[in-house]
């Protein structure tokens, strides 16, 4: 797989390490009343359904940026690559 890095251009996926579903960026509020249940869901439960998947890749052997990659997990086709910090700022 080739990941089209927003700053560095097309890079081989083997330069990256994979973390998983980009929902991991939405850390629950530890002060919330429902924090225990929220953290259980956040940490352990995954949607994991076929088709489009937004996921976190870390450019470990490159510029060490975190990316949010939109990839079809049924075909491995990558349709969008964003810097995770841009995604975090825009809150999507």
């Amino acid at each position, binding site marked *: 797989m080739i990941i089209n890095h927003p700053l560095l251009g097309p890079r081989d996926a083997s330069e990256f390490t994979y973390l998983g579903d980009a929902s991991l960026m939405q850390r629950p509020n530890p002060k919330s009343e429902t924090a225990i249940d929220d953290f259980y869901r956040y940490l352990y439960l995954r949607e994991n359904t076929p088709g489009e998947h937004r996921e976190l890749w870390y450019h470990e052997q490159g510029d060490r940026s975190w990316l949010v990659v939109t990839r079809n*997990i049924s075909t491995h086709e990558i349709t969008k690559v964003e810097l995770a910090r841009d995604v975090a700022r825009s809150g999507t």
Partner: protein
Amino acid sequence: MRYSALKIFKEAVTGHKGWKPVWRKPAPKPSYDFIIIGGGGHGLATAHYLASKFDGKNIAVLEKGWIGGGNVGRNTTIIRSNYLHHENEGFYEFSLKLWEGLEQDLNYNAMVSQRGIINLYHSDPQRDAYARRGNAMIMNGADAVLLDQDGVRKQYPFLNFDNARFPIKGGLWQPRGGTVRHDAVAWGYARAADSKGVDIIENCEVTGFDIQNGRCVGVKTTRGKILAKKVGVAVAGNSSRVMAMADMHLPLESHVLQAFVSEGFKPFLPGVITYGAGHFYVSQSDKGGLVFGGDIDGYNSYAQRGNLPVVEDVCEGGMSLMPAIGKARLLRMWGGIMDMSMDGSPMIDKTHIDGLYFNGGWCYGGFKATPASGYAFAHLLATDTPHETARAYRMDRFSRGLMIDEKGQGAQPNLH
């Protein structure tokens, strides 16, 4: 039709015209007592034990493709019971005992071959960890022998013992481990279940559940609605997808694992070996091909194929362990989709929906579990209580902090 030497002889002299298909192709009935979704090893074993050990009647197995097309026919065929945690080891040892009697139970040659498995160690701390694991195995009634370098050398003189970075210092040997012809397992269970009246319905994909007032009363399929008193799901890599139809999120990710087979050679690799310094495991099939594999690709996938970096990685692992493999040519490779759980251990449990039961999270180790998983799931479906060896496999263990994390990797499924 029972198989016997006499039957083979008779067929040989009469032109092999008497062999018949070994399971029927029934149309789905409007309702069943038990529906098992997924005609892989676990689903078929569940149906077999339900009918033969728990007096279950009126059972159907619904398979979206064909029997043997899933992971049961894609794995590298290794069986063993060399786990560390007691929640797992008792279960896998139960499974190994069932493998030992499987062919008599099914009257089917599944080529169960207890040729032994050795996990190699390459450092003193690794030896200590394996000694501890061996003790845990023995305490659970399994067999384990800690070998030093000479012990390994006696069985496998051609390994790369003096590798500068990862010298082979010895291994943990389980003589009762080995391999089983994987698709014969699917066919053998299918035939045995069919002979007890189980309807095995292929090309029948489940597309939804019929849930009324918190109770599952049937399923929707590509071949129409079917009612059921109890529904058991055993769909391996498709677990999240199927349970999403009941609005459930699971502690699972689906990942692809690849398997490789070389051209055939004369027998030279008597048992199974696993590399302790890289992810690589290998055995030699009775046809002579080297059957081997390594790590999962590492990212979520529902495509039943992997990518080249892992092919390279696996072959490098093989080269550093047994350089002789460099002369072998790769003949075939393929991928299968696995249900990687958040602690690397499986689930066999009721769901919060009455009448709906779940079996999954087998990661890349579910083939060896097939008999015990089927037995324990049948026990649960028939009696509504967990089998004694599967008590720890609850779905709520993640919310209760009771993970069974064999590898100590935490909630990172691609590292298990």
